[in-house]
């Protein structure tokens, strides 16, 4: 774990906690934008630049804008208190959950963090096929793009349908009849 990794984990953890603790929703949204950017850098550090770019554009960009538009159209809590009050029963419950999940971590194979040859959960044979054949099959050097647009093109089309359905749902919910 490099110094950059330590700094990023610390940054992400601090911004996450700050998002929870701050009472004003506008501040929480801005801090959450910083959190998303930190996560994007963390993904990039873990050799996933495509995920990092998407997270920076959509997580830190589009989601933040959507949240800001929402509070512009509605309201945010008024009052002088800076910090939100802590709900201790909920904190205990999620604390137990975190400890439970954390206690499974030593049993997750972490070979891939110590110089082991294979990614731990994705099947190495399947991964090996894509690494070897991507260019021959699709003529694209970026394996992520190749899987997204060529091997799994229909899934990506289905994703576009989901986005379209979400757009329709937003228009229906908001009673914005563009065509009437």
């Amino acid at each position, binding site marked *: 774990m490099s110094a950059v990794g330590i700094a990023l984990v610390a940054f992400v953890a601090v911004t996450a906690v700050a998002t929870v603790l701050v009472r004003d929703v506008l501040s929480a949204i801005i801090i959450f934008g910083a959190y998303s950017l930190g996560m994007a850098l963390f993904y990039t550090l873990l050799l996933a630049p495509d995920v990092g770019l998407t997270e920076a554009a959509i997580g830190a960009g589009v989601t933040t804008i959507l949240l800001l538009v929402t*509070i512009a159209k509605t309201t945010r809590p008024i009052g002088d208190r800076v910090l939100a009050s802590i709900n201790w029963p909920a904190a205990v419950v999620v604390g137990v959950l975190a400890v439970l999940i954390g206690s499974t971590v030593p049993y*997750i194979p972490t070979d891939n963090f110590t110089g*082991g040859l294979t990614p731990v*959960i994705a099947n190495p044979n399947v991964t090996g096929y894509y690494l070897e054949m991507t260019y021959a099959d699709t003529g694209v050097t*970026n394996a*992520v793009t190749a*899987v997204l647009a060529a091997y799994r093109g229909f899934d990506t089309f289905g994703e576009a349908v989901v986005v379209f359905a979400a757009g329709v749902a937003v228009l229906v919910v908001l009673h914005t009849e563009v065509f009437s």
Partner: protein
Amino acid sequence: MSALEFLTTGYAYLAFAFLLATGLYMMIASPNLVKKIIGLNMFQSAIFLFFVATAYVQGGSVPVIPQEGGAVGEYASPLPHVIVLTAIVVGVSLTAVALALIVRIYTEYGSLNEETIREVARR
């Protein structure tokens, strides 16, 4: 496994557990509906972190592969990355619909506070 080794190899998974719990706490405990949605997004990004961490290969490079092809262990696995890309886009669609519902709730009830909405609905 010693504690130090555990920290250096499992830090991404520990961050995953911590962020998952933090997001879930926001969804449960925050009375404000917009903050609940922020918590939902945090929960999602923690799961993305888990997927990306499983694809990581120490000393490997990003999955951009030269024409002659690569071998396992030289590159991070591209497959979890693709799943996460899809999930990010679906996640933002989910957020958009949830926030539209919140705007409607505000026009009906005049508040975004969970308790206040419950009381107005009871009357």
